[in-house]
């Protein structure tokens, strides 16, 4: 399937791809598989019972990547996709996912994706997910991604998720369960503007001794947008968890941050930090003394904050 200019530009935004990637990939465009490549170590199979794919990574696969971008350029398209990742033991892989919607029509476009990761013993996974929306139509751009993570003994996952503008409404749910000595890091970045609404719910359950998690959530709410962040950490073993929820509020934005910590084991050590504030005037002044205008200074502060 040939991609048109809009589809190509979406692909660049969500996966930084100018051409087809190296290694395994599956590109989903307007509800269909547009391109796919499998390798000896990484297989991609279309699900038969529901929309979506299974990505099966053989044990011992090292230094390999999988790209699975989704792009929607048809106004009014609504889809619900299930992608399951089965990652064998002793792997070291990078998975790049993301969804771009370009909606220039009058009807709402919506992508709901459920990504499930079953990470085998001692495997390391780096997961990068970008959400992006554009278009001038009245139709809304909606995304509701759910991420399910199960980390086996000694497994680790580093998730970098971002949604920088363009999505009208989103509910992003992440649920993770950690086994013995498993480790999870989440860096979530979000920027909302206009009348956008974004809600993120993250819940991490640490069930194995020696497990740990570190969640960093950074948000910027501009104009009349609304952001809600719920970060819950549950320690059911000798484990350590840290969550940092940091937001910049601008204009008439609204931010609601809810920390939740639950411990059922005396050796669980859990920390939650949350802060909401506007851009400090002195930060703007400092950058202005270096030649930036107030607007440029503001952009630079936000760009750094959401890096």
């Amino acid at each position: 399937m040939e991609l048109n200019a809009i589809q190509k530009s979406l692909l660049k935004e969500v996966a930084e791809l100018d051409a087809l990637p190296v290694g395994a990939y599956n590109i989903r465009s307007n509800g269909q598989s547009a391109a796919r490549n499998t390798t000896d170590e990484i297989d991609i199979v279309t699900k038969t019972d529901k929309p979506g794919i299974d990505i099966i990574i053989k044990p011992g696969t090292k230094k390999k990547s999988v790209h699975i971008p989704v792009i929607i350029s048809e106004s009014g398209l609504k889809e619900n996709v299930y992608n399951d990742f089965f990652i064998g033991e002793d792997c070291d892989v990078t998975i790049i996912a993301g969804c771009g919607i370009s909606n220039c029509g009058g009807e709402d476009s919506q992508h709901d994706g459920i990504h499930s990761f079953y990470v085998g013993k001692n495997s390391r996974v780096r997961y990068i997910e970008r959400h992006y929306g554009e278009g001038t139509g009245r139709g809304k751009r909606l995304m509701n991604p759910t991420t399910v993570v199960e980390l086996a003994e000694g497994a680790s996952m580093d998730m970098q998720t971002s949604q920088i503008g363009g999505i009208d409404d989103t509910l992003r749910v992440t649920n993770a369960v950690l086994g013995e000595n498993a480790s999870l890091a989440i860096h979530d970045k979000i920027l909302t503007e206009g009348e956008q609404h974004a809600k993120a719910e993250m819940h991490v359950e640490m069930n194995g001794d020696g497990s740990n998690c570190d969640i960093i959530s950074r948000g910027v709410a501009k104009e009349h947008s609304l952001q809600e962040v719920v970060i819950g950490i549950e320690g059911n073993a000798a484990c350590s968890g840290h969550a940092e929820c940091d937001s910049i509020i601008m204009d008439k934005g609204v931010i609601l941050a809810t920390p939740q910590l639950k411990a059922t084991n005396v050796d669980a050590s859990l920390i939650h930090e949350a802060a909401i504030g506007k851009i400090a005037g002195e930060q703007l002044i400092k950058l202005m003394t270096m030649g930036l205008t107030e607007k440029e200074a503001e952009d630079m502060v936000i760009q750094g904050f959401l890096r």
Partner: protein
Amino acid sequence: MSKWLPDGKERYKGEMLKLENICFEIDDKEILKNIDLEVDDRFVAITGPNGSGKSTLLKIIMGIQAPTSGRIWLDGTDITELSITERANLGISFAFQQPVRFKGLRVRDLLELAGGKKMSGKERFTHACDVLSEVGLCAKEYIDRELNDTLSGGEMKRIEIAMAAARGTKMTLFDEPEAGIDLWSFQSLIKVFEKLHQETDGTIMIISHQERILDIADKIIYLKDGEIIEYGEGKNVMRHLSLDESPSTCAKLQEKAGLAQREAN
């Protein structure tokens, strides 16, 4: 003496900086009183007791605070009505007494910004590394550090000085660079300013209580209660102050300088 520039700005020939009858009031309190000042030397130190208006004076030159009345000229251009940004682009830089921290922005981001648009990306990076070395920080170790609270006060301070100096503008203002730094950096700080004094093409104005900084200044401004009490060559100002009008203040000043010196040693 004066002529009109094409952009409509009145130009006068003369000093790098001229302040004319600058007053600053806040809450009915006079912070600066009728300051007239012409600066044409390369290294001018401003000293005086706390609350004498030193920081306010520098902030008014940078445009961070607007004077209640009076006019400011930079190298022949009337900058009184110009914004901070416009003044920065005309050639004024400012090192804050309390450096600002940024989550997510790295040392290199700001140093490269200081390097300016004229340089290529690679030149900017090399320049950033060079100026870090100048303030005694290992470029390799610091260039990618975030300007957040993982950096100590002393490290922030040195980076702040590097950022202001890196812009290489015709006027660089330092608000008490010695405040809040650790002992090790104090020694290197003096060397940094000695070097800046020797090598810079522009004018440096620096608020300081440090004898060794005052020693290398071409001229010293002694500010008290919002007024310039003395302005002249270093030795004359110091001698005059110690023998004459305000012995108690100067004794304090010398004591302060001596104390910091002893701490540094």
